[in-house]
C-alpha cells in the first residue's frame, strides 16, 4: 500500500561502479544478449500494437465519422465504445508487458547484475526478497494462472523452446547415473530444441514467439539440439520422466554459474536456464539448490544426485534448509503436478526464512564475484584503466569533487 512504506533514511547509495571491462564482458554474455533481443522484440511489438491501434482510432475519428456515429446499444455509439476500448487495451498491454518483463527479463538481469557485483544492490536485497515473497504468495492465490498453464499443457500449446537452450549444451544422451527409465536424449517426439521449460509457460496467454539464437561470441557450442530434456507439455507418464541431468546440483549448488569449463559447466548452465520457470520467481535471490534441476523438473520421488545433497549439506544449517526447500517443492509437485505451483509453494517456504536467505545470498554473491573475477583474470580480459579518471567521472552524471568519493 502506498502509505506503508515511508521514506526511512537513505538506502542503497551505489557502492562500486563496475570497471569498464566488466561491461565489455557482460555485453558478450549470452544471457545479456538474450535480454536485449527479448526487450527489443517486446518494444517493437508493443509500439506497433499500441501506436497502430491508437492511430487507427484517431484516423477513424477524423475520417470515418459515419462509422463512428453508428449506435451500438442505447446511446452508446461506436466512437465511445472504441474510446473505452483504448483504455482497456492500454491497461491490458501495460499488464502484459509488466508480466513478461517480470518473468522473462527480470531474472536474467538480476542474475547478471548480481554477478557484476554492483555494490549498492546488495543492501537492497532484503527488501526485495520480501517483496518477491509477497508477490509470490499472491500468485499462489491466482487460480487463473495455474488454470491457464494446465490448459496449455493439456492442449499441447507450449512453445517449442524458450530460446536456444540447446545451444548451451544440452546433455548428450542420458546422464550417467540417471534413474532407470530416464530416456536417453529425451523421449521420441520431443520438439527440436526443446531444451527446457519455457519461462513463460504458465504465465497467462502472452507468449512471445521463439527467439533465434543470439549472435555473437559467448554462446556455448551448439549441438545439443533436440536432445534436451523434454518439456512437461508432452504428457509423458510421470515415472519415466526425465529429471534433468545430474551434476546440475553440483554445478549450481551455490546458486551461481559454475566456474568450471567444459561440458559439465555447460550442462549446469543449461539446467540453470531450464530452471528459470521456477527461478524466475526469485530473481537474483534464488536460494542455492533451487536453481538446480529439481526446481524445474523435479517430480515426486525425483532422483537427486548424491552430489547435490552433499553440496548442500556442506553448507551446514543453511544447507539443510536448502534441502528442505527442495523437498518441499517436490512435495508440492507431487500434490499438484504443476510446476508453477510447486515453485510458489517453495517460495512461500523461503519467504519464511528471509533472513537465512539473505545470509546465504551474501555468501553466494561474494563467492560468485570472486570466481568470476578469477575467471576473467585467467582469460585475460581487457584490463581496467582503459580510460582516465576524468572522463569517467563526467560520463554518467558525474562525480563530486570530494576526495575519497572518486568517480561516484
Amino acid at each position, binding site marked *: 500500500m502506498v502509505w506503508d512504506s515511508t521514506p526511512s533514511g537513505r538506502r542503497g547509495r*551505489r557502492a562500486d561502479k563496475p570497471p569498464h571491462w566488466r*561491461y*565489455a564482458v*557482460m555485453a558478450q554474455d549470452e544471457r545479456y544478449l538474450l535480454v536485449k533481443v527479448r526487450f527489443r522484440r517486446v518494444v517493437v511489438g508493443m509500439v506497433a500494437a499500441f501506436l497502430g491501434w491508437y492511430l487507427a482510432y484517431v484516423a477513424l475519428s477524423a475520417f470515418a465519422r459515419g462509422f463512428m456515429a453508428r449506435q451500438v446499444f442505447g*446511446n452508446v455509439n461506436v466512437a465511445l465504445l472504441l474510446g473505452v476500448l483504448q483504455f482497456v487495451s*492500454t491497461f491490458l498491454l501495460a499488464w502484459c508487458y509488466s508480466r513478461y518483463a517480470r518473468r522473462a527479463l*527480470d531474472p536474467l538481469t538480476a542474475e547478471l547484475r548480481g554477478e557484476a557485483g554492483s555494490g549498492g544492490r546488495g543492501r537492497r536485497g532484503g527488501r526485495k526478497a520480501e517483496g518477491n515473497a509477497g508477490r509470490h504468495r499472491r500468485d499462489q492465490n491466482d487460480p487463473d494462472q495455474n488454470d491457464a498453464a494446465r490448459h496449455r499443457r493439456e492442449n499441447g500449446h507450449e512453445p517449442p523452446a524458450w530460446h536456444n537452450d540447446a545451444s548451451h549444451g544440452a546433455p548428450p544422451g542420458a546422464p550417467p547415473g540417471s534413474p532407470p527409465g530416464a530416456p536417453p536424449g529425451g523421449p521420441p517426439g520431443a520438439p527440436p530444441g526443446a531444451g527446457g521449460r519455457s519461462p513463460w509457460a504458465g504465465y497467462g496467454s502472452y507468449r512471445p514467439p521463439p527467439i533465434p539464437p543470439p549472435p555473437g561470441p559467448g554462446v556455448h557450442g551448439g549441438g545439443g539440439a533436440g536432445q534436451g530434456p523434454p518439456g512437461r507439455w508432452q504428457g509423458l507418464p510421470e515415472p519415466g520422466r526425465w529429471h534433468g541431468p545430474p551434476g546440475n546440483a553440483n554445478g549450481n549448488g551455490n546458486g551461481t554459474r559454475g566456474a568450471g569449463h567444459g561440458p559439465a559447466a555447460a550442462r549446469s548452465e543449461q539446467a540453470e536456464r531450464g530452471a528459470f520457470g521456477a527461478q524466475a520467481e526469485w530473481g537474483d535471490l534464488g536460494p542455492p539448490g533451487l536453481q538446480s534441476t529439481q526446481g524445474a523438473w523435479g517430480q515426486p520421488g525425483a532422483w537427486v544426485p548424491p552430489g547435490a545433497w552433499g553440496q548442500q549439506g556442506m553448507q551446514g544449517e543453511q544447507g539443510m534448509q536448502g534441502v528442505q526447500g527442495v523437498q518441499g517443492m517436490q512435495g508440492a509437485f507431487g500434490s499438484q503436478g504443476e510446476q508453477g505451483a510447486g515453485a510458489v509453494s517453495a517460495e512461500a517456504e523461503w519467504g519464511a526464512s528471509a533472513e537465512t536467505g539473505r545470509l546465504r545470498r551474501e555468501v553466494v554473491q561474494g563467492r560468485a564475484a570472486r570466481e568470476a573475477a578469477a575467471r576473467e583474470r585467467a582469460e585475460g580480459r581487457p584490463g581496467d584503466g582503459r580510460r582516465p579518471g576524468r572522463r569517467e567521472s563526467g560520463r554518467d*552524471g558525474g562525480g*563530486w569533487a570530494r576526495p575519497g568519493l572518486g568517480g561516484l
Partner: protein
Amino acid sequence: MAWEDVDGRVLTFGLFLAFIVATLAITVWARVTTKGADDFYAGGRVFSGPQNGVALAGDYMSAASFLGIAGIIALSGYDGFLYSIGFLVAWLLTLLLVEMMRNAGRFTMADVLSYRMRQTPVRTAAAISTVTVSVFYLLAQMVGAGALVSLLLGIQEGERFFGMDAGTAKTVTIVVVGALMIFYVTFGGMKGTTWVQIVKAVLLMVGATVLTVLVLSRFGFNVSRMLGSAADASGRSQEFLQPGQRFGKEVPGDVYHTILNKLDFVSLALALVLGTAGLPHIVTRFFTVPDARAARTSVNWAIGLVGAFYLMTLALGFGAAALVGRDAIVAQDPAGNTAAPQLAQALGQEVGGKVGGEILLAFIAAVAFATILAVVSGLVLASSTSLAHDFFGHVLMFGRPRESQEVAVARFAAFLIGSLGIVLAVVAQNLNVAFLVALAFAMAAAANLPAIVLTLFWKRFNTAGVVAGIYGGLGSSLMLVICSPVVSGKTDPVTGESLSLLPAGVDFHIFPLENPGLVSIPFGFLCAIVATLLSREKADPERYDELSVRSLTGTGSH
C-alpha cells in the same frame, strides 16, 4: 453559526488555507531531511514504486486535465474524450522507456543522453530543451491558475474580494501561487514536492470519485441514460456524442479547410501520445525510486490512476452537460473550465440542499487549487534540476562541482525560474495561452523523444545527432507555432474578434495547422538521423555496449 449562513467562499478559502498549511508542513519536514544532491534532485531515491506512481499521476493530472477536459466534454461532447485517450495511451511509451532511463540516468534526461556523447554540447542542448518545455507548460498553468482561482472564489468582474477587484485578484493569485511553488521547490526539493504530489493526487482521485458516483447514481448507474440526457441538454442530440464537434470540424463546401482541420487533429493526437515520455517533470520523477523495477511499478500505478481518472472525467463532463447545462457553464466561463465545480455544486444541492452544494463546491475548488500548485512545483523542480545539474554542474563546472554548490545553484535556479514564470504569467494573464499545453507536448515529442530513443537504441547515434535532434525539434516546433493561426491571423468569423495570441489585424501566419506536431516530430527525428550520418564523428561501440548493458541490466546504475 447556523449552517444556512455558511458562505461557500469562506469555506473554499478555508480549505485552500488548510491545504497550504499541510503542504508547508510537509515541505519544512522535507527540508530538514534533505541533505545532499540525491535528496534534492531525487528524493534520496527512497520512494516505493506505488508512492512514486501516485506522484507521477499527480504530476501529470494538471488542472487542464481535471477542469479543462471535463469542460471540453461538457461543451463539445465526445471530442474532449479524444484528449484523455491521447494523454493515457502515451503512458505505454513511457512504460517501455522508463526502466532503461532509470538505469542509465542519474537525475535528469541529459544524464541519459550524454552517457556516450560529448558532455558539453549535449547537456547544453538538453538543458535548453528542458527549460523551454517546462517554462511554456508552466506559463499555461499559471495563467490558467490566475483565472481559475478567481473564478473558484467567485470573484466576478466589478465585484470586490478583500478589497480587490477581479483584475487585482487575478494578479495576486498568480503571485501567491508562484511564491508557494518557489517555496515548495527551494525548501522541499524532490522529497517535499513528491509528497505534495501524493497528497494532491489522492485529493483529486477522491474528489473525482465522489462526483462520479453522485453523477452516476443520479442516472441510476445507467451510462446510456446519462449520455442521452447530456445529448438532449446540449441541443445537438446525437451529434454531441460523435467526434467532430471541436476537432477536425468539417467545413461545408470547403474541402481544403476540412482537410486542414482534420490534419490539425491528427497532429494534436500525435503530440499527445508521443510527448509524455519526453516531458521533463515526468522524466525527473523516474529517478526517485531505488531501481528500475520500482520505476516500472510506478508507471503501472500511474497508468492505473490516470486511466481511472480520465474515465471519471467522462462522467463528469457528460454529467455537467446534462445537469448544469451549456448555458450556465458558458455564463461562468466561456472555455468551460468551471464545469466540474458547477457540477459539484449542483450535485451537492441535490444531496444536502444549499449547504451541501457549497461544501462540495468548496471541496472541488480546493482540489483544483491543490492540482495547480502541485503541477507547477513539479515543473519548476524539473527545470531547476536540469539547470543546476546539467548546465551549471557539467557545462560550467566541467562535471566537478561540489555537491553542496550544485544544490545551492539548484535552489537558486528554482527561485529564478519561478520568478520568471510569475512575471511572464502576470504579463500574459489576459492573453489566450491555452495552446501552450499542447505546444509543450509537441516540443517534448519533437525535441526530447528522438534524442532519447536513438541514444538508447541506435549504436551509430552520436553527439551531432543528439544536438541536431534537440535543436531541430525544438526550433521547428517554435517556428511553426509562431507562424500558425494560434499566434496571429485567426479571427472569429462573426464578431471579427481575434482568437489568436496577438490582436486582430496582425496576421503573419503561414503554417496552416495549430499544432506543429505532425511536422515537427518527424522533423526532429530526421534532424537527429541526418546529422548523425553526415558528421564525421564516430560513435564509440564500447560506450554503446556499456550504456546498453547498464540500461538493460541496471549494472552500476545509481
